[in-house]
């Protein structure tokens, strides 16, 4: 399978008042065309920083990466044309209607106006937002808002879709709907999906392959079954046990002592 994302030694150091902070120390990874990649790691491991670099929002301070054949440093516009990105916070204005946000987004991807209007209708159909086109985005429920965020990122039919904790805060029904959507994107459009999550059941159920990062480097990668076998001793083990073994953050003895009430 062809690699659609490849990163070598990708790093980012932030200069702060207390001295340099190495948020990402050197990420090496390959993502294949048409796969769903789960990008896991504890809080502060560097997941969002990596995502922000791969989507051109943040300049790397070391290493290289290409997305859809475009180099992050020399061809950021090429990367932007090829990928869609949904941030944790989403990214729609509360006071603007769903239709206007979708059309403006299409035009930012340089679609002619008539095409952008048509595409907004298509996306609304595909993501179950048809009856809501003339509502303000503030009026949408959490699950619908998330679907709108994803619709915005799909405007230009990107080859790669980056989702940063897409199901955080959603009810179980909305989460299941989102999983279906992600699978449909892969199966029907061949879209490569790169997603971060803290829900290990989600990673297990949805991702074709997992990459685990900790302290700014890749510490394990493989299919969910391979990680369970290698790090928790059995493919029937839980992904949580494997994850805790990989990141060395299992329950510590101190946590086991009873708390005085």
């Amino acid at each position, binding site marked *: 399978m062809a690699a659609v994302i490849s990163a070598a030694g990708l790093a980012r150091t932030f200069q702060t008042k207390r001295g340099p902070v190495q948020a990402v120390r050197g990420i090496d990874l390959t993502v294949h065309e048409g796969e769903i990649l789960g990008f896991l790691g504890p809080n502060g491991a560097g997941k969002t920083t990596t995502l922000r670099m791969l989507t051109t929002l943040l300049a790397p301070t070391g290493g290289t990466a290409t997305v859809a054949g475009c180099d992050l440093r020399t061809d950021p516009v090429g990367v932007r044309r090829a990928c869609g990105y949904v941030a944790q*916070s989403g990214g729609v204005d509360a*006071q603007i209607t769903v239709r206007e946000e979708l059309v403006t987004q299409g035009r930012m991807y*340089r679609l002619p106006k008539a095409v952008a209007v048509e595409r907004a209708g298509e996306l609304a159909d595909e993501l179950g937002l048809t009856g809501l086109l003339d509502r303000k985005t503030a009026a949408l429920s959490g699950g619908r808002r998330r679907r709108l965020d994803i619709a915005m990122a799909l405007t230009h039919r990107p080859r790669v879709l980056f989702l940063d904790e897409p199901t955080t805060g959603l009810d179980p029904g909305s989460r299941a709907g989102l999983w279906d959507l992600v699978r449909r994107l892969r199966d029907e459009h061949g879209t490569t999906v790169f997603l971060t999550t803290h829900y290990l059941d989600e990673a297990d159920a949805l991702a074709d392959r997992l990459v685990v990062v900790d302290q700014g480097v890749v510490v394990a990668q493989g299919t969910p079954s391979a990680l369970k076998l290698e790090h928790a001793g059995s493919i029937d083990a839980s992904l949580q046990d494997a994850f805790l073994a990989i990141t060395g953050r299992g329950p510590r003895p101190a946590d086991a002592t009873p708390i005085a009430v």
Partner: protein
Amino acid sequence: MLVHDTALIYGRYLRQSLRSRFALLFGMLTPLLYLLFFGPLLTGLPLGGKGSSWQTLVPGLLLQLGLFGGLFAGFTIVIEKGQGVVERMRVTPVSRLALLLGRVLRDATVLLFQAVLLVLAALVMGLRAPLWGVLIGFGFVALLTLSLASLSYALGMKADAPQEFAPLVNAVSMPSMLLSGLMLPMSLAPAWLDVLSHFVPFRYLVDAVRDAYVGSYAGAHVLYGVLVAVGFAALSVTVGTRVFRRAGA
């Protein structure tokens, strides 16, 4: 592409302004209050200007409008950053410069609209000034807004929270207003204050508009005003562009 993208961003934000009519008028409340309740106090006082007291006060109020409107423009981008709107736009191929220019041109449009209303109200209060002078005044308001809004958005991109942004802008806006002689001309000031005010760029703008309002277009004041306004705009838009072009914080 730059023109297409700038027009697109301009349209989005102008529609946003038109939706909130209240905010559209609220920005001109302060200068309007000065016009109504402070202006009449000056009509009999010797202000050292050539025309009536209105020809001295109204140019100051117009620039006050541009000063506050421009300086606080960046507040909206701090909010938008929190909503994720800024990053969502920055992952599209849209021109980085257009993200700035579309916004500042919207601000200039809104401030010009408010400036026209303010001058109409001033006419009712008793202002009489040559048409060319009034038009030149609008030109200065637009340039000042472009400049300050660019700086304000640049600051807004750097600030992490409204709590960081607001105190800094407040710390700049009040001294700028007082030291440039927007309310009363600095010709009334003691020498030390007059000298100090020459270090504030807006001083040159208000002197130029006051000259224009009495029909004197070819003097040193208008010349210096144009030079300072254009130079300041070039500097500010350059600073804004650099901040918007650089990826990430």
